[in-house]
């Protein structure tokens, strides 16, 4: 089975702080890591490949430094890495990101399965997987916590709010995974060192390689624009009520009414 894994390079959120003035993430000096769920997607891909053969390609869109994530993926055992990097990709919203990733997958051509994390810890939208599936016109299985492959199909267990669902879908198919799916392996030292060598199987594709126009991708190709980012102010105005229980209850009801909070008819 040939598998494409979508891997996003994200800041290590355990270290991320927000600049109180601008409301933006302070990324300086913060280590970049592979989005945690994407490691599980990659692990799933590697296990399937190890059992059934085929090839695992990791695909990432990001600035040149995102190559570190690809190196790590190769050191875990991926066969090929592709980094989509071009100034015209910058500022992409999820729509433009999905379009770009989708175009690249089309260019890869040979694939039975696309695996992605459910959600990126920085962007947090969980939109990329589904949108890429839509772009490619293939079925999507999201929130997957168990995955099995058959000839021409995959069978997945999806985690729902109050239970789970077993479904089967024909390949090619896109699957987004949860961290409960498996325990990702470590990259090997030998693999990491190999991945930094010139002969490492890493390709970097730009807009021209994908045959996209500048207005289709990046900020220009985005349907949404960020107007402002801010941290909501959670200021509290605590009021202490005193007196007998009955008096406190009466005061409380008055206070709630004043705030126009309806207490039921």
């Amino acid at each position, binding site marked *: 089975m040939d598998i494409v894994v979508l891997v996003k390079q994200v800041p290590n959120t355990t270290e991320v702080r927000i600049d109180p003035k601008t409301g933006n993430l302070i990324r300086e000096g913060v280590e970049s890591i592979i989005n945690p769920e994407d490691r599980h997607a990659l692990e799933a891909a590697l296990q399937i490949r190890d059992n059934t053969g085929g090839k695992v390609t990791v695909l990432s869109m990001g600035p040149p430094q995102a190559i570190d994530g690809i190196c790590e993926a190769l050191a875990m055992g991926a066969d090929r890495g592709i980094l989509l990097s071009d100034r015209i990709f910058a500022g992409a919203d999820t729509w433009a990101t999905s379009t770009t990733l989708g175009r690249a997958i089309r260019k890869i051509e040979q694939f039975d399965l696309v695996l992605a994390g459910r959600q990126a810890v920085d962007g947090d939208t969980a939109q990329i997987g589904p949108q890429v599936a839509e772009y490619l016109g293939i079925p999507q299985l999201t929130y997957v916590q168990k995955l099995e492959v058959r000839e021409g199909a995959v069978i997945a267990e999806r985690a729902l709010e109050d239970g789970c669902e077993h479904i089967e879908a024909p390949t090619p198919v896109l699957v987004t995974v949860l961290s409960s799916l498996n325990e990702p*392996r*470590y*990259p*090997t*030292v*030998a*693999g*990491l*060192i*190999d991945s*930094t060598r010139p002969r490492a199987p890493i390709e970097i594709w730009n807009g021209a390689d994908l045959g996209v126009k500048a207005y289709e991708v990046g900020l220009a190709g985005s349907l949404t624009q960020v107007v402002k980012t801010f941290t909501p102010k959670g200021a509290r105005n605590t009021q202490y009520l005193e007196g007998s229980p009955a008096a406190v209850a009466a005061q409380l009801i008055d206070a709630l009414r004043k705030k126009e909070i309806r207490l039921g008819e």
Partner: protein
Amino acid sequence: MNSGLDYFGESHHILRQTVAKFVEREIKPHVDEWEEAGEFPRDLYRKAAEVGLLGVAYPEEWSGFPSDIFHEVVVNEELTRCGSGGLAAGLMSHAIALPPILAMGTQEQKERFIPPVLRGEKIAALGITEPGGGSDVGNVKTRAVRDGDHYVVSGSKTMITSGTRADLVTMAVRTGGKGHREISLLVVETDSPGFSVSKKLKKMGWWASDTAELALDEVRVPVANRLGEEGAGFYGIMHNFRKERLYLSLMANITAQMALEESVKYARVREAFGKPLTGFQVTRHKLVDMATLVEISREFTYRVAAKIGAGMNAVKEISMAKIFSAEVCDRVCHHAVQIHGGYGFMREYLVERLYRDSRILSIGGGTTEIMKEVISKIIL
């Protein structure tokens, strides 16, 4: 750390990050528990092997990448950073057990013994020390009597790191009469009849490593397990000591470095008489003295490592490094506990363990006195 820039390149950097991450995720969260338990799960060998940590310093076909002496330095330093010297010593006991096989073994022996250990499936230990003496290696008493294509081995070994669960022990035995020329090295497989672990030893430090007394009662060891010629054991042991002493020096330096770091952190926040401890000149100067010793010791040890890496014999230098680094470590850990006051005596504080773990470093792998004997023979 910005010292030793010349010694470390990109592959060392990658290795350091990998080991550091491994230590952070797989070891640190459990280290206190394993220290108290007196051992760590056997599975950790396999995990470390999967990442490729155990294969460093072995030929590329086994480790997966060409390594040099500073790759060994990196693994040693970062593992020691887990804060338990015992864990580092136990997980890496093959680093003293396998080199004689690599240096003296036949191709068949290397292929039989080394890869399963580097894959984390088998544990290897080095068995030299006996209840009757450790420093006087030439006086090993465990006897190996030839019987056809076997040796029949009887005797005992003690203080053997990883001894309670080792699958193979690279063991010094006496194959002839008196003297150091009658000592041979055998690889003893511990599932052989007559081999037993007589005791798991309780120790002052290095708790997370299991240390054992071993008994051999007419254990039949194939002659095919002898490393090199009969009587070549003493040379093999001496050759092996050089790397062991380097590892112990590195461990001393990192242990001291951690004691220093903990002390700096503590001295900044702990207040006495209305000011932080760093407000007292006597404390500041003590920290400076500690930092100076650590820095000098580390730089000297790196230099000696470079010499060994370049194929120089460096016996005098490595012996000096071992004496000096172990002494620095003792002194720095002593001051670190002092700076921590009563808390330095408490189990929750890392310096308490570092202090206990430090003590072995001037004893194991050849005592300070033996190092001085070695050096005096060279310079006098």
